[in-house]
């Protein structure tokens, strides 16, 4: 029933010699045989990337429990084999990590909200009443977004005219700012799991769902915000709100909209993929889950019971189009395409391009300042250290005179190719946040282990409802072994202080520098200033492969 593919991908000859325009056309990328009577357009986890970027997909993405070896926990050659993607093809570049630097030079940057606008316009040309749904993590992740407290993204997204949105990092702007923006949004702000913390009742400002009448079909879109916001992010920034998965309330909402005549039930989710899979097995009556948070890009829907789960990537790199045939009050068929936004192939929409430049103009000189160069590919995505994180940890150890550095296992942040300049904008793209102060404190060896065990369980607990959807905390100056098959408290061993080669002593104190603390009274310089100072001193950075984390039990 689901006919999904990227462009008909076979070999495109010698990719290294082909510019993206010669290998691909906009028509190919947009080609879609309009189907049924309803179209959904899904964007998610844009992380304020208004301009085209490079984004390397993960090499290491380990599934645990029932999700071991299941998508999205399939990477590289296994992924290409699973979906029939040819090595070196545009799809291989968009969806897998191998040969990234070489393929990136051939196929160019991805994303850019002006290109996304062109894709949305093309879908609306074919289906004028298509629903545009934003899965959240939109008002976070860049220098201009930080400096304008999300206003640049609000302005650009409003121009794209979404129909509904749900949330995660938006709340790190602080609840006052979020309330101000949401009250003025020209579209629905949804989250059935956004509750008032004091009374444990649904929050008034965020509705659980909204009805739309499209193509003669009564559609209910139910929002599901990120369930673990006050745990994974600083709860003191939005103390009025409580979240959680709340699948019993999700079931109640599905039953309510069905009773009110919904013929199609869509869940706009920021749960993360494995949580969505589990929820689809526990809540009945959802036709489509548009899945966000874990940044997975899948060229085909995953079916759980009668529920289709669609994963649309991150950082503006993809747009999903989902066409549905809804008749006699039920969904009869689905056609889907994950559209990669090759920025050299898809023409920018001139109006949105101008609007983006207008947002950036006040900061243009600051953004463009070259801080250094890199000899190495800088990337982040992966369950353990990425080279960007290694560089950030190096900066923390050297600038803050620490034994050990810790950097959060976030999944956002574009990549930089070897030989590229590193601009201030690039540094903000991997560090920007409202709680980015770089702390320096002492921790005992025992406590460092407690942290690694705690974060390890947030990603490798076999039950997805106990995971938070981030990657493992990144460490510098510290080596360890992790057995992901073990329970919390038994996964981490052989912790070693790299500068001496000695085993970490549980009773001894170590100087630890880190950033993105969820504690309110954190003090220190902003992380982007720490990284900029470090890169400035280096001139050209080289990051050697990190072999200090040993993973077993996968």
């Amino acid at each position: 029933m689901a006919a999904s593919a990227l462009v008909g991908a076979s070999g495109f000859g010698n990719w290294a010699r082909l510019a993206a325009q010669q290998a691909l056309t906009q028509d190919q990328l947009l080609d879609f045989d309009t189907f049924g009577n309803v179209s959904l357009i899904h964007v998610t986890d844009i992380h304020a990337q208004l301009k085209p970027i490079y984004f390397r997909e993960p090499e290491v993405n380990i599934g645990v429990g029932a999700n071991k070896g299941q998508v999205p926990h399939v990477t590289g050659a296994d992924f290409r084999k699973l979906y029939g993607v040819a090595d070196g093809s545009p799809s291989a570049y968009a969806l897998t990590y191998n040969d990234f630097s070489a393929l990136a030079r051939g196929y160019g940057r991805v994303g850019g909200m002006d290109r996304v606008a062109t894709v949305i316009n093309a879908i609306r040309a074919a289906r004028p009443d298509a629903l545009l749904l934003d899965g959240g993590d939109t008002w976070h992740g860049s220098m201009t977004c930080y400096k304008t407290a999300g206003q640049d993204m609000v302005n650009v997204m409003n121009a794209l005219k979404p129909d509904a949105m749900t949330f995660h990092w938006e709340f790190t702007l602080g609840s006052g700012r979020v309330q101000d923006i949401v009250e003025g949004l020209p579209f629905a702000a949804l989250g059935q799991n956004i509750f008032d913390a004091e009374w444990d009742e649904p929050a008034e400002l965020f509705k659980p769902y909204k009805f739309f009448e499209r193509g003669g079909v009564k559609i209910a879109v139910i929002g599901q915000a990120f369930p673990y916001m006050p745990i994974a992010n600083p709860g003191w920034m939005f103390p009025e709100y409580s979240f959680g998965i709340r699948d019993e309330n999700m079931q109640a909402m599905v039953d309510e909209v069905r009773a009110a005549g919904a013929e199609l039930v869509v869940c706009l989710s920021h749960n993360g993929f494995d949580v969505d899979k589990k929820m689809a097995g526990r809540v009945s009556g959802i036709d489509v889950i548009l899945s966000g948070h874990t940044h997975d890009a899948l060229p085909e829907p995953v079916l759980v019971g009668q529920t289709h789960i669609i994963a649309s990537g991150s950082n503006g790199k993809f747009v999903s189009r989902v066409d549905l045939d809804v008749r006699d009050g039920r969904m009869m068929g689905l056609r889907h395409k994950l559209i990669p936004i090759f920025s050299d192939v898809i023409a920018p929409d001139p109006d949105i391009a101008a609007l983006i430049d207008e947002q950036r103009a006040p900061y243009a000189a600051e953004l463009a300042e070259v801080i250094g160069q890199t000899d190495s590919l800088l990337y982040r995505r992966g369950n353990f250290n990425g080279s960007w994180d290694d560089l950030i940890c190096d900066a923390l150890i050297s600038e803050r005179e620490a034994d050990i550095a810790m950097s959060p296992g976030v999944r956002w942040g574009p990549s930089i190719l070897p030989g590229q300049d590193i601009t201030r904008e690039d540094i903000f793209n991997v560090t920007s946040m409202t709680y980015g102060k770089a702390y320096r404190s002492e921790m005992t060896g025992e406590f460092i282990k407690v942290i690694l065990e705690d974060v390890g369980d947030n990603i490798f607990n076999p039950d997805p409802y106990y995971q938070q959807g981030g990657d493992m905390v990144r460490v510098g100056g510290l080596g360890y072994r992790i057995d992901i098959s073990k329970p919390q408290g038994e996964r981490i061993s052989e912790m070693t202080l790299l500068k001496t080669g000695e085993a970490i002593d549980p009773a001894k104190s170590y100087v630890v520098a880190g950033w993105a603390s969820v504690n309110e009274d954190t003090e220190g310089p902003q992380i982007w200033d720490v990284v900029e100072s470090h890169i400035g001193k280096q001139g050209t950075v080289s990051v050697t492969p990190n072999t200090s984390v040993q993973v077993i039990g996968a």
Partner: protein
Amino acid sequence: MEFSRRDTMAMGLGAAALTVLPMRAFATATDDAIAAFTGGAEMADTGLTLTAPEIAENGNTVPIEVSAPGASAIMVLATGNPTPPVATFNFGPLAASQSASTRIRLAGTQDVVAIAKMTDGSFARATSTVKVTIGGCGG
């Protein structure tokens, strides 16, 4: 991620308490409380709904809800707390519904257990694992 001295000490003490007090002590206290409530009767898996968050937003105040149509009493236990019994809700014959919600304090990741005593003399049991985490680092 940063931890104040107070948090650090609290965690250290929690860990110390867990190592000093053998798990059997908690298990025995839980088993004893259940035995006293049920008189050792069999407990059904259905008929009682326990709603609790999978991961606590704040371990010091975790919202939970119990509901068992036809119950005369529902007992709630935090099996990993030094004193597991949390509350017993009694419902009179005129009670409009046999449900209750409250907030409980959890010393760490543990199973919360609820036991319902039905008016017909039977019992039902429900369990939910609530994780208490130090948080941070979310993607």
